[in-house]
């Protein structure tokens, strides 16, 4: 039998390992992002060089008519002796059959699954808002001056129909160096390097183009790794049937309103995206009696607390704004101006604030209550 007329199955078995190597090169090329035509060309180039080298090394020698060992996993010498030009061309051709379409596999899978990667938004508008907050602690006294539980928290609870005991924006009392305390309202920081988003296994929490971190409670599986990852304690879990007013169940759940809360999922402050897009301010900004919280847009560099307007960059810089836990590198969108309520007449020694209440007259039947 003519040595170059080796059967196809023999050829396959002979060049098996080498073919696997070629495939790995192809995959690596695809992995490096070189897909489609450039990828095919690259792999052809690699194969062609390999074929040329091998042909020069062994092509002119007469190949053996019998094979002493099992070539699959056999030694390289035998292998090389088996590669004549015909075999090389067959190998080349076979690889082309498989390598070429390889680069299109991911795209094909995406199309098959019906999930197209979103194209750039076709919109006449070009500038996306970049929401941020500035909280002026010189004006925050924990609502001591109005003798009520903190109103920012109360408005948020009422506005989002929060189940007890969630406080998305929570007013903490922090000890100052020296004597006394200060009040510091802490909403979700909407980090630009969010630890919660990085660890979510199903992508239920995500970074929106406006810079907000949102949660889709209809995708959340309730594994709570995001709660372990958040360094600011700003994520809350619906341990049981959430104790919300029955009216909440009249609404269709939407991830920008988060009404009603769904059992077994995670929730948090969302910077009220539905409201600010419609041109009003979030609940907490509207409710603060001292107008201590500013809501703004980093794109236009403007912020307001409901009464005054400021330039975000100038305002923060002028008053030496800081961010929480800067050393962690989370890059939050909430800036704090240091103070302890002095602008509304509070001295640091006046400690204590009233506890938050959840004012529902009636809660949905079957609800549970839990503690933080």
């Amino acid at each position, binding site marked *: 039998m003519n040595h170059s007329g080796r059967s196809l199955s023999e050829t396959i*078995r002979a060049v098996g390992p080498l073919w696997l190597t070629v495939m790995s090169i192809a*995959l690596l090329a695809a*992995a*490096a*992002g070189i897909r489609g035509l450039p990828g095919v060309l690259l792999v052809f180039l690699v194969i062609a060089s390999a074929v040329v080298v091998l042909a020069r090394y062994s092509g002119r020698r007469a190949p053996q008519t019998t094979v002493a*060992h*099992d070539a*699959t996993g056999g030694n390289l010498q035998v292998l090389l002796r088996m590669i004549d030009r015909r075999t090389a061309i067959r190998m080349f051709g076979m690889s082309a059959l498989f390598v070429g379409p390889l680069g299109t596999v991911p795209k094909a*899978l*995406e199309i098959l699954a019906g*999930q197209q990667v*979103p194209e750039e938004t076709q919109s006449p*508008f*070009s*500038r*996306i808002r*970049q*929401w941020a907050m500035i909280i002026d602690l010189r004006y925050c006294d924990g609502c001591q001056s109005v003798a*009520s539980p903190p109103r920012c928290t109360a*408005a948020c609870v*009422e*506005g989002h*129909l929060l189940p007890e005991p969630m406080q998305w924006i929570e007013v903490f009392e922090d000890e100052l160096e020296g004597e006394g305390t200060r009040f510091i309202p802490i909403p979700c920081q909407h980090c*630009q*390097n*969010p630890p919660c988003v*990085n660890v979510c296994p199903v992508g239920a*929490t*995500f*970074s*929106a*183009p406006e810079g907000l971190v949102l949660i889709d409670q209809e995708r959340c599986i309730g594994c709570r790794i995001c709660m372990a990852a958040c360094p600011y304690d700003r994520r809350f879990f619906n341990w049981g049937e959430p104790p919300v*007013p029955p*009216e909440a*169940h*009249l*609404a*269709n759940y939407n*991830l*920008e309103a988060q*009404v009603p809360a769904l059992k077994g999922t995670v929730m948090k402050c969302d910077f009220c*995206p*539905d*409201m600010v897009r419609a*041109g*009003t301010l979030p*609940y907490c900004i*509207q*409710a603060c009696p001292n107008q201590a919280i500013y809501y*703004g*847009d980093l*794109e*236009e*560099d*403007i*912020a*307001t607390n409901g009464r*005054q*307007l*400021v330039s975000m960059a100038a305002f923060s810089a002028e008053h030496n704004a800081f961010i929480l836990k800067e050393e962690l590198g989370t890059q939050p969108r909430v800036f704090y101006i240091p103070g302890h309520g002095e602008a509304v007449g509070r001295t640091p020694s006046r400690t204590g604030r009233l506890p938050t209440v959840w004012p529902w007259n009636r809660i949905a039947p079957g609800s549970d209550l839990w503690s933080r």
Partner: protein
Amino acid sequence: MTWRRLGRWGTLAILVLGFLLLGSGGAFADHWTVEVSAPEEGALGETIQLTATVHDAATGEPVEGAELVFFSSVTFAGVGGDIELGEALTNDLGVAVFDYELRKLGTHTITIEGGGEPNILSFPVTIGGQLYRSPAGISLIPGAGGWVVTLVIGAIWVIMIIVGVSVVRVSRGSPPAGNEAEAEEDERERSAGTKWLNTATMVTAVMVVVAGGIVALLIRSPNTHHNRDPVGYDRSAVAFVEGAYAYPDFGLADDAAAEAEIGRGLFVTFGCAGCHGVDAEGTTTAKSPASASYDWVRQVTRNGQPGMPSYSEQELNDTQLNEIFAFLAETRGELGG
């Protein structure tokens, strides 16, 4: 001659009038003239210079060390007013230069105070795109990590599938290629009846399916570290600077029977309950609308108010408005008027 004509009272009147004229017009600015200038137009993101030249009105000499305050007129989230941009002092030539970064598209209106009457500059900014880019979602080589994971896991599973194939070979009892003596013996064994559909093949098939599922998971996975623009989400809209949006209605989940019942539902789904309370009883953010008249409710809802968005005919039609009012009337009755 003039003085004798005016007389004592006339002179006094002129002197008083003179002092009044001198005293008016501000503390230091009564004798200054201020000329302000700005470029014709600017591009977004550019830092332009606003110059103001102050001369003494009487002598025409440049005034040094005069303080001028610059304001910009803006509107944001329903609040309109002036932002204080900063101050500038004039130099020995009487020129004050203020660096101003253009962050807004449209007409900029700059007010400069400190030179008597406030001077107003106005110029358009029409060119420009996104200025602030969030660091979220940026990775070094997009998707590279995913491919590395896919390759490693893929390699391991390929090896396991090869093992599976070896086990299939065991079940078929096929000899390794090229060994003549063994082949004869196994040929005898083979005729004893082997079937393709045995455990080993099925197990290998299962492994192939599982491996395929894993690879599919990895390939479909979103590529950005921070899950930006995630696949499969239906967000109603992104907030654009230039856009004007309605407050979205998220829809009633159930069909409620009576008008007031529907109104109660709409009160929640349109976001009214957020500020006004589920029972329209009022909250920290907004007062109770229960005691308001129909006309007042209609007017405020259609036109909006500071702190309250407006709902046009298309967003909240008259039928729905009536239903909400029916709910408010019922609540008013419950609250006792």
